[in-house]
């Protein structure tokens, strides 16, 4: 992957992260991309330095009785790359992401 060039899929994933969908599964749900695409893309973005991954606080996980999740954040370099990508993919700039994934809330 060239450092300056993001494919449409990668840009889409980056934008989803930028919009606050910070987990692999959330990105999948919101973009509709399969997990076999999203996870490798996340790894590549991380290798390129466009996103950084962190573990969720243990306390949150404990209360929900599940293992801690790993989340991804767009870095400064990632933000720049996203701006460039939006210029290239005009449609991407038009995309609006819903604020929540809960189908019930969405309906309201």
């Amino acid at each position, binding site marked *: 992957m060239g450092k300056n060039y993001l494919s449409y899929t990668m840009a889409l994933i980056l934008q989803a992260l930028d919009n606050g969908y910070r*987990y*692999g*599964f959330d990105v*999948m749900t919101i973009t509709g991309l*399969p*997990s*076999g*695409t*999203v*996870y*490798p893309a996340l*790894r590549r973005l991380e290798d390129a330095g466009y996103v950084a991954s962190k573990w*969720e606080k243990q306390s949150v*996980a404990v209360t*929900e009785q*599940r*293992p*801690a*999740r*790993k989340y991804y954040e767009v870095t400064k370099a990632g933000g720049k790359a996203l701006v460039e990508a939006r210029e290239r993919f005009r449609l991407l700039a038009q995309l609006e992401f819903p604020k929540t*994934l*809960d*189908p*019930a809330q969405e309906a309201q």
Partner: protein
Amino acid sequence: MRKTNRIHLWLIRLIGVIVPQRLRADWRQEWEAELRWRELQLSEWDKLDWQNKLDLLWHSAGAFADALWLQPKRWEDDMMQDLRYGLRMLRKHKGFTIVAVLSLALGIGANTAIFQLLDAVRLRTLPVNAPQELAEVHITDVSGMRGNKSTYYPAVTNPIWEQIRTRQQSFSDICAWGTDGFNLAQGGEVRNAQALWVSGGFFSVLGVQPALGRVFTATDDQRGCGAPGVVISHSFWQREFGGDHNVIGRKLTLSNKPFEIIGVTAASFFGLEVGRTFDVALPLCAEAIMNGTSNRLDSGTNWWLMVTGRLRAGRTLEQATAELQAMSPSLFEQTLPANYPPVSVPKYRDMKLAAVAASGGYSVLRTNYESSLWLLLAIAGLVLLIACANLANLLLARASAREREMAVRQALGASRLRLIRQLLAESLLLAFIGAGLGAALAQGLSRLLVSYLNTGGNQVFLSLGMDWRWLGFAAGLAVLTCVLFGLMPALRAARVEPGSVMKATGRGLTAGRERFSLRRMLVVVQVALSLVLVAGALLFTRSLNKLLTVDTGFRQEGVLITRIGFGQLNLPQERRLSFKQEIVDRIRAIPGVKSVADTGIVPLSGNAAGNTIWMDGTDGQNKVGTNRSWVSPDYFKTLETPLLAGREFNEHDTATTPKVAIVNESFARQLLNGVNPIGQRFWIEATPNNPERLCEIVGEVKDTTYRTLNEETGPTIFLSMAQEQPFSTGGQLLIRSDLPQAEITATVKRMLTQINPAIQLRFQGFKTMIEGSLLRERLLATLAGFFGGLALLLASIGLYGILSYGVASRTNEIGIRMALGAERKDVLWLVLREALLLVLAGVAVGLPIVFFTSRLAASLLFGLTPTDAVSLGLATLLLIVVALGAGYLPARRATRVDPMEALRYE
């Protein structure tokens, strides 16, 4: 609910196995957390229905793509770390690496090359459609076969083939084929084209497609076919026509007859004979055009066709054989030739046909070389074992040098398994580099071996392309060798007690005996195996030498064989003999030529003829099979075979005078109990060409070898060529001269071309031909010698290594001994005694192995027993000398130890 819905979590655990270990825990947690969270969320939304569950499973399957994507990160994994560390170690110890890689490459290369040949000759099936369905139809008892058999393989006559074709039911398709050679040149020196005679069904039985044009079908092969086309092989097309696509329709001259090219076969097809390829194929019916009235189509005494068929679906070989057996009596009754020798008629009627599998094709090469190749593979395998023992020894030596390193690493928390893995990674690297080089080397070696077998008269063609079998073989060898030479040292090295090693800072008085004794054992094994190989090499070399020095009864040097053919001149019977005489006279007149003779059978050429005879007046009570040759005057003079009694043939022996014969010593001894044979008379049985006839013995000659060097000379009769009708349109002239072979060849060629440019010529040195007949023996002797030498070299390296190590670790001891008054020769002996002990132990182990295994090679030896005392003694001596040689350098180093220097470090 929680328990039942965890399939996806198990899936993650399973896929996680292929994730590089360093990342695995994190990776699993991330996926698990995501899936669990999603599950929770779905149940919160009350949407945990089957659809969503399946969806979840589908998402977890995506983890596989993720895991695959992470594979390159393995590079940073432990394994890669080990390999990289190993590579660094190998680079650092260049000398060790070079020795190790070279000996492995040689060992693996030699094994792979020989395996490659075996694969091509024995293991592979024919490159045709469904070869396992092919079967060969042959006659089971051939003792009643009379006439001319022009192939090594079980053959039938054309009338028999035609009957099989019409009668058989077991084969869906069946064909006959034979081999021949045609002359591409029109006069002058012969340019040979290897030919196949094929019946119309040949290509369809084998499922061979044309690369260009078309191949024969049943309509091409009809009796009386006018001007059939010729199908050429892919390689011939490339060689002769440069792969020209407009070759179809062009004319090709075969033995002066023009044929139109109608097709080119696919590149992979070489015929049914493994070890030989073909240039051109003609339909059987064209025999009538090629050989005119003397064609073999209606002959019941020319055995020249092999029959191969494709079994009908569901038929077994047993069923086919049963059917063939049942039809045999009437078939042979019907084809019984009118001119068949009466004695053999009952046997002809009793002949039986049978079917055997033909998936591997036909091969003389296989018959002649298979056992030698297996033997060579075993020998090469032993060399590899020795090389492994050597490497294990070197690694053990290095392991003791790295004892402290291992101790430190263990003390720092490395597990034993980790250390073993790391050491094994090093040997794995060595093994694979060795195997890679070896495989490359094998390519060259196997081709070299094929070209070695490829002598003028004996064209060998083997397809040696890439094949999973030998690639697998090479890789398997690599792994095996790695385990053999790597595992033991690795286990040992990792067993050190960190405490004790690190405490023992300096060196002790003597080295630790235990580890040392393992290395000694390895050296003893090496010596024992080397003894086997060296003894084998000596056996084969001595056997070859015996063959080369066999008393042949003639002088091989200075004789040129000139094979001539003047069929193109269309001379009538009565002119042929005088024409040949004219040629002989003119050659004899060449300055430097001592004598010239013509012969029907060139001794040791592999050709043979035989007849049953009995002495006149014995009523045929005592019938004896004899070798037969028919020769011109001066034959024995030319070969310098001593005439013991009587005379040679001369110009007064003609077709109209009483039949005369010359016999050899064995004849006189066996049939006449040593009575002077001159004047005695014997009967020769009736043959398809001649009735029973009476011959008078006019001469007796010394025994000469007849067909091959390694057979016992039996009774042999020589008949006069002038009395052997019908006269042929060819001859095999033996020319003895003082001139260099190139010169006499050129002169004879010029002269014969002057006489008539249409005469066909073929030249061969007599000695060259005889040496060529010992190809297999020479191959065995050369390769066994090479491997024996290699084994010796490896064993001496092993010995040297262990003795040097011994001297180095005993420096203090030697210093003390010298300080106490030991002389140089005592010290020298101290080391050499060790070498001698090791070698004697090796010999003690090796000799029984030799006794046991050399029996396997008994059939390949000539004039020697497998336990030939000279060879074994010589091998033992050689090993002792080599051991002393290998021990001398360390021993001399030991004598140079300065006592003061040695003791200062105590």
